[in-house]
């Protein structure tokens, strides 16, 4: 079977700093892939490369077998129609109300009438646990956790078949973490979408993911079934999931060094 998303030999550096080096990963259709890895290891950069928001230095990114690297925007646009994304910082449009944010893709991309789009937006907001009144507020008037949920509703509004979530549960209380995790699961299981989720939260990783991949030093150092993460012998993965300070992953600087 052809992978839904295939990244191979991807390189990206910012000036001197090599962020991605020789990164390869495949995601199969209908699969939920979770990417874990330390802060600043390039997880967000990887997703932005896939979406074409950052141009990689070299390497190949294919969706449904079509090469994206080096393609003009007009060509990419076709693929973006079927992609949904939740940004790490939510990135809600602050000049639009919450429901208009959620309905954005419906109105402009799917050409849905305003009233109809509003109705669907409010339904989507309800599924992430936000009621009608919130729909009329502006993003600056809601809490960080609420923004995350609105961003999620916006990303799935047009029912894309490839979804990216950059830390969708960061800053949410445990109950809503559960709600969001179930929602991502449902997108994959019920809608048949393919999902790539970045998370630091191992509990989310186990519930949401079919597969887990760990990124370190610019490439994938371990990949396997979500059910196998706990029993895997990889010292990097072990250190990460158990949150030990000692191990092969070194902090770039420590307090002692600075002092």
């Amino acid at each position, binding site marked *: 079977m052809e992978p839904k998303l295939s990244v191979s030999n991807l390189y990206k550096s910012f000036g001197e700093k090599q962020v991605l080096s020789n990164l390869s990963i495949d995601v199969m259709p209908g699969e939920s892939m979770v990417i874990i890895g330390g802060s600043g290891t390039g997880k967000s950069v990887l997703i*932005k490369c896939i*979406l*074409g*928001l950052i141009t990689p230095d070299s390497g190949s990114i294919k969706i449904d077998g079509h090469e994206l690297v080096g393609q003009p*925007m007009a060509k990419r*646009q076709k693929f*973006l*129609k079927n*992609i*949904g*994304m939740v*940004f790490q*910082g939510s*990135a*809600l*449009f*602050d*000049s639009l109300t919450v429901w208009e944010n959620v309905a*954005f*893709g419906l109105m*402009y*991309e799917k050409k849905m009438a305003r009233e109809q789009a509003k109705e669907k937006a409010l339904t989507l907001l309800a599924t992430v646990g936000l009621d009608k009144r919130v729909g009329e507020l502006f993003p600056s008037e809601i809490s960080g956790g609420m923004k995350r949920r609105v961003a999620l509703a*916006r*990303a799935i509004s*047009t029912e894309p078949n490839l979804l990216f979530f950059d830390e969708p549960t960061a800053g949410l209380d445990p109950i809503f973490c559960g709600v969001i995790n179930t929602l991502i699961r449902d997108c994959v299981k019920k809608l048949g979408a393919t999902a790539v989720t970045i998370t630091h939260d191992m509990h989310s990783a186990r519930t949401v993911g079919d597969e887990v991949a760990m990124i370190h030093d610019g490439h994938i150092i371990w990949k396997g079934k979500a059910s196998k993460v706990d029993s895997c012998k990889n010292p990097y993965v072990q250190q990460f999931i158990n949150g030990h300070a000692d191990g092969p992953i070194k902090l770039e600087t420590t307090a002692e060094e600075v002092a």
Partner: protein
Amino acid sequence: MILVTQVGRVFLKFLETTGRLSLFLKRAILQGLRPPYYFKQLLRQFLDIGYLSLPVVGLTALFTGMVLALQSYTGFSRFNAEGAIANVVVLSITRELGPVLAGLMVAGRIGAAMAAEIGTMRVTEQVDALTTLSTNPMKYLIAPRIFAGILMLPLLVIVADIVGVFGGYLVSTYRLGFNPATYIKQTTEFLEAQDVYSGLIKAGVFGFIISSMGCYHGYNSKGGAQGVGQATTKAVVSASILILVTNYILTALLFER
């Protein structure tokens, strides 16, 4: 030697920026001319740039017209040329001061707002979010602002012309004792169509400059609040300077026989 390399570096930087800017504007305009069109965005910009700038531009024009009449009276009365005041007022307003002052005021008001809004959207990833919702930021954000700038500035300048001339009329009739009918006759007598439309052409160009600078610097802002602040400053300063330089060039072109 160091000086030469410095000059060279500045010159290269200038060429680079010019190149980037031209590419940016070419993309914005070409893509903006093709569907889908975002009429709501365009309308919002019409309101912002045109309607909401009326008070600022009107006040500027009014006081400029008034002070012109007052100043030329002190000067002209020394050699009994008071009859030329109406003429001086209408010509300076329509040909130069209307478009230039309206341009500078709008650069401060709108250029800054555009750079700040788009810059904030850029640093908070809203511009990226637009792209992932398969909306082209060039069409949705940039093109409406540029087209609205080109169309609205001439309309603002028509208002500025009328209000400015009216300011001169007020001072001349109420303060300097001119006969209203004579003043109006003197105003229209030597006024040619070219005086007005040359000003309107300038206004269109200034509108283009203001929106382009606001959008370009906003779109390319980096970092956080500080980056947006810098973008705003750059947008206003570069637009103002470009307006003054272009004004000279356009005057030379439009009135050279």
